């Protein structure tokens, strides 16, 4: 792994050929591009769940919180609330985002929390050596489903569209420039952004051939809700790029806080004691 200003001293332990390398490079490219647009790395804060994707936390030289499995989306919302001036990037696996912590991503979309969720979607639990995930195809043979999964997969992008997501995109770890541009747009978007990144797992679910055949880069352009929904549901091709993007909905932190920053604009001790005394006086 080449050393650069966005890479830490941690030893990289992803399998050779892992799709995470492509995502890592796209993320670093996106961070540099955001820097050129005036958002320095010091204004970025990352969270990660648990799984192979989570190693991004150790390798990426930006500040953050290495959270629990399924909870990085909740941690990210707390960070945004405490400091609304930060851009919070939340890394998850498909087990994290669509299994263990599905309620958090649904509610983050529902309330339009201004966080960018990047799902490393490889359709398999890699770090725990190969079990089916909520998005694995029916028939997927994993270590907990040796005769093949008997469940149909979820369609997370369609679900999140329905929950009110305001930025919905798909990426492919094999199309680094397209992914980088998508990530920049997702972080710049003020509101809930989901970027579902198709990622082969060379050890347990090697989908390079399939994705190379089915992935299709989207032409830029606005899409209506119905057009975007139809695109999320397409089965013959896998469109990558920004599928849906609207700016009409107010982000959660602004609706809750207005322009107030809970930590930086903290009410001082004297003012608080005066308020408390006043409340007590009227009881």
């Amino acid at each position, binding site marked *: 792994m080449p050393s650069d200003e966005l890479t*830490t*001293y*941690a030893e990289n332990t992803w399998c050779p050929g892992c799709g995470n390398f492509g995502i890592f490079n796209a993320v670093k490219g996106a961070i540099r591009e955001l820097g050129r647009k005036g958002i320095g790395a*010091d*204004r970025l*804060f990352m*969270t990660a769940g*648990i799984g192979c994707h989570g*190693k991004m*936390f*150790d390798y990426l*030289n*930006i*500040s*953050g*919180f*290495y*959270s*629990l499995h399924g*909870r990085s989306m*909740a*941690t*990210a*919302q*707390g*960070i*945004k*609330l*405490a*400091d609304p*001036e*930060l851009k919070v990037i939340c890394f998850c696996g498909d087990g994290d985002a669509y299994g263990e912590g599905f*309620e*958090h991503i*649904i*509610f983050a979309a529902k309330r339009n929390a201004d966080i960018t969720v990047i799902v490393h979607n490889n359709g398999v639990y890699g770090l725990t050596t190969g079990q089916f995930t909520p998005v694995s195809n029916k028939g997927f043979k994993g270590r907990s489903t040796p005769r093949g999964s008997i469940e149909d997969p979820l369609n997370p992008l369609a679900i999140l569209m329905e929950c009110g997501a305001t930025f919905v995109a798909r990426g492919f770890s094999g199309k680094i420039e397209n992914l980088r541009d998508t990530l920049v747009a997702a972080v710049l978007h003020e509101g809930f952004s989901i970027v579902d990144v198709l990622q082969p797992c060379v050890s347990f679910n090697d989908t390079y051939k399939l994705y190379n055949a089915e992935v299709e880069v989207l032409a830029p352009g606005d899409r209506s809700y119905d057009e975007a929904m139809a695109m999320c549901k397409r089965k013959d091709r896998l469109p990558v790029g920004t599928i849906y993007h609207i700016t009409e909905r107010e982000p959660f932190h602004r609706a*809750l*806080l207005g322009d107030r920053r*809970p*930590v930086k604009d*903290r*009410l001082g*001790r004297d*003012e*608080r*004691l005066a*308020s*408390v*005394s*006043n*409340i*007590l*006086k*009227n*009881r």
Partner: protein
Amino acid sequence: MAGDTFTFMVGGKAGEGVKSAALVASAMFSAMGRSVFQNDDYMSLIKGGHNFSVVTSAAKRKVLSPHMGADLIVSLDQRSHDMHGAQVADGGIEVLNSDAVKANVGNGVGIPMTTEAKRYPRPDLRLGVGGVAILASAIGMDLQDLMAVLEREFPKDLENNKAYASTILALAKGAGIAGRFILEKGGGGRRPIITGNEAIALGMAAGGLDIYLAYPMTPASSILHFLASNDRELGITVFHPENEIAVANIAIGAAATGARSAVGTSAGGFALMEEALSLAGMTETPLLCILSMRPGPSTGVPTYSAQGDLMFALHQGHGDYPRLVASPGTVEEAYHLAAEMLDMVWRFQTPGILLTEKHLSEASMTVDIDTGKTAWPDPVMHSSETGVYKRYLDTKDGISPLLFPPSKELIKWNSYEHDEKGITSEKPGVISQMQEKRMRKEGAIIDRMKGMRTVNVFGRTGPVIFTYGSTTMSVLEALAVGGIEAKVVQPIYLRPLPVWELQKHEARGAIVVEQSAGGQFATLLSDKLGIKDIKPIRRYDGRPFEPTELAKAIKEAL
């Protein structure tokens, strides 16, 4: 009247204004300078059922418990009469709603409260106002005084309330109730009346809280409600997310970004927060959790009180890390302890639990709170002179300076075992170094606690009674009622347990009073202090100890 107290009890169906009648009664007593303790007994339902409230007041001392022997009982329905008619104290009186109660009035009187209420819209809601009028009559208030109370306390639909109350007042006079009790005025004038949960909320707010998160769960919900309706005035952000798992994890994210965060729940919700509490322990995130107990296991009895989650609170979260647990004895102590615990979790960067019970959470008391004594967090912060930032800098006391974004420095909080910079590590040397660093904070906590008030002792001589939480109030009230001399020892901090203080008291043969069927507090004391021959007094039916009954049990144990 029973001793030096006066007790007013009102009972009826949910939705008949039972609790609001009691609130107004409390305000009336406080206006006389009397100390007040109000306990509301209600069922987990919206309409119907049986609700009753007890308001005990005294002129010369602080009342610390409701008394079940009532001087004046107002029974709005049959069930109230059936359940409480026999609880009239010597010289007391029961006033029945004669439209709803079919009974021989006995030593009480009947007033057709419903018939009179039917002259106005929504008659059921008006019964509580009638209860207030009966109390006003019994303690010798005249029409003018009563009208002033109504104007202050029942501003909604005031004219109808005034008309109804005037009628009931006249009927009470006709029934010979007027001026039956002459109540002594107390010194010091009117005091504020607040619940334990309001005290906790105010204490946290005064103590620098930035964000409060909770998912509703009785008996902690009223902290959420109070802060949500006073958020702007107190400068607090309040957020009710999808579940307790989100609550705890969002709070941790906010705390890692510098926001003083707290969460509140009862044990079922607390169980869902467990993994996040351990996360706070590992990442060294300051997090305050309010845990208000109700009878368990499982869903248990939602609107009643217990102390059966002590061991759960003491052992929250998996793995080794320093834990803080403290429990307030009174509403006033709840205020100060909430602020102090916020300071403690920020000082030592570890999770802390403020453990309480439904009895304290929802009971109301007159309080004297000196807000000037409220604690304020004073965490160790990184300064730019100390060089490259390391989130988990290994220090002598184990406390690593904090730094929050935005910063040019790299700030890494990590749930995996990590090196000083916060990068994941599985090296044996690093693992033991960090385990030891975290555990050293426990020594630092104990050093600080040795300069703090961590145990309350009431009384100087006599047998030793150990208790904790709001049961302390029950014990003190029982001693006052029973004229018993004893030394009551109440640890405020339960983890670390201030053994150095508790060992000052002869513990052999001590009485241990608690609200746990399994005797969890007694187990803690015998484990940590090696106490033998404990005499346990336990109540675990969801109700607080009744002072007269408890006094009898203590006398028997002596």
